[in-house]
């Protein structure tokens, strides 16, 4: 069992000090992508210091591994703002690899009570480049939202989708 996996298990320890130390060490280990799901869950920890180090580790993370996409989809619907925010962010970082997460992200976009999570969902849908009718309709709806950031990100994601669509059209035409 690798150090990172051991630390990830310690994130669920009963003692707050053990969880905090594990989160800090994961934040310093440089590449904790394989425990992305555990770090996202740690964002819901009752201890501030655990949450902050989990966020620090997640900020440094690249795209999550394919095996974590399904649990991240579930976490995207979490009631805790920080957990949902980081689950959505990692799905966005996965890019087109997280294509199957589009329905979950559309749901978050339309139902999350947290503005920051909805905004991130709009951003993530642009990264995933899903061109399904449901995604485009959802982004079109929030484009006229009173939340200027949400509206802007939705518009940018629609542009991304169109660019992707044009690219696919050209590819097919050439093929």
């Amino acid at each position, binding site marked *: 069992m690798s150090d990172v996996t051991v630390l990830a298990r310690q994130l669920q320890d009963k003692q707050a000090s053990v969880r905090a130390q594990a989160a*800090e060490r994961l*934040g310093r280990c440089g590449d904790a992508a394989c425990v992305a799901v555990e770090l996202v869950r740690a964002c819901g920890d009752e201890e*501030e*210091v655990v949450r902050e*180090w989990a966020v620090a580790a997640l900020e440094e993370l690249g795209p999550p591994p394919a095996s974590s996409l399904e649990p991240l989809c579930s976490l995207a619907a979490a009631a805790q703002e*920080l957990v949902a925010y980081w689950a959505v962010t990692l799905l966005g970082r996965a890019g087109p690899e997280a294509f199957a997460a589009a329905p979950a992200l559309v749901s978050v976009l339309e139902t999350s009570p947290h503005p920051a999570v909805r905004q991130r969902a709009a951003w993530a849908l642009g990264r995933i480049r899903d061109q399904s009718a449901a995604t485009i309709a959802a982004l079109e709806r929030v484009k006229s939202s009173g939340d200027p*950031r949400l509206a802007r990100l939705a518009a940018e994601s629609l542009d991304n989708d169109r660019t992707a669509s044009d690219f696919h059209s050209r590819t097919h035409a050439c093929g």
Partner: protein
Amino acid sequence: MRLMERQGREARMTRRRSTSTRRKGARSVVLSRVIWIVWTVVTGSSIAGWIIPGMPLVGPLIQQVLGNKTVNEILSDERVNKVIDLAPDEAWQGKLGFLKKKLREHQAAVHATSGAGYQVPTVPGAQVPTYPGATSAARVAKSAQTIRIASYNIEVFGTTKMGKPWVVETLAQVVRHFDIVAIQEIRTQDDQLMPTFLAVVNADGSRYDYVIGPRVGRTISTEQYAFVYDTQRIEVDRSSVASMSDPADMLHREPLVARFRTRSSGAGLPFSFWLVNIHTDPDEVASEVDVLAGVFQVMQAARADEDDVILLGDLNANEHQLGLLGQLPGITWVVSGITTNTRKTKTYDNILFNRFATSEFTGRWGVVDVQSVFRLTMDQALEVSDHFPVWAEFHVYESAPMQHTAQLPGYFFQ
């Protein structure tokens, strides 16, 4: 007759060839000596001493000889290229080009490690000091003619770090080497963090103070920016301290701005300037650096009597990823070609200003390699922060803005 003329012509040509060969040989010898001298000076302590004036004898001596010119001014690309053009052939041009490359590498290395006067703190495994009042470090000697402004992302600066006295002492020593430090990533709900940290910084008799911004961020995980400054050398206009308004919510963490001025007893006008402290969102760097171009221009126009705007912080972008910010007329940045994170893999942090307006910049800058300066292991260095501090030096007096021609090709670029 014709034969004699031909022989005479050939003899003259042979003499010319011989003279030319001797001249070339002589030039080569002179060039060899010049290269040897330059190489000895560069690889010896002179340049290091020049960049680090605190270095005994050599630094001040070289500085005296060369006046106030900076290493970048004396050994500018333009001048070095002129020398290369003087080379008699391609072989020599190649040798001089190699020398230029080595010189630039040497300069980068000196910038990376310049930190004379740091004390190695007590690290885990040895006796751990308690604070405040733990430090025995000698007061840092600072130049009366210049100030140094730094930017430092102190990763998750909160209760965990404050619970490690050797980490706090290391951070305090870093701060004492600068006149102002723009800090990013204060992450705690504890409002006593900065007063406690300042008590450690001032434990050696220093008189630093700070201004801090509100908690900013889009989720419950927020951060604060702060400016820590040496009150004996710098004063802040407290009415100017503000978190920038961002009604369209373009930036994850709105910059903290404040206007500072040097305290100097000389006849010159004290150098005053805006500082704009920023930490971009790593997922939206491209759009945020574009927005920062607007922020910079807004600050340039904020006061008619202030032309110096210095934007500094963790941009999560290297010098090639500055977007519209990097294309502003006259904009320049100090950190280039060197990494700023502790793992030495990325350039995230920088200091930017308008090169014509802020002609007070002396040309000196650096990245403090905390790991090597404090003799830490990588793991210990990462306990201090995942970033290194970056700094730039400025004259204490205002200087007249430099004249420039906006139509010059390449004007927009460094």
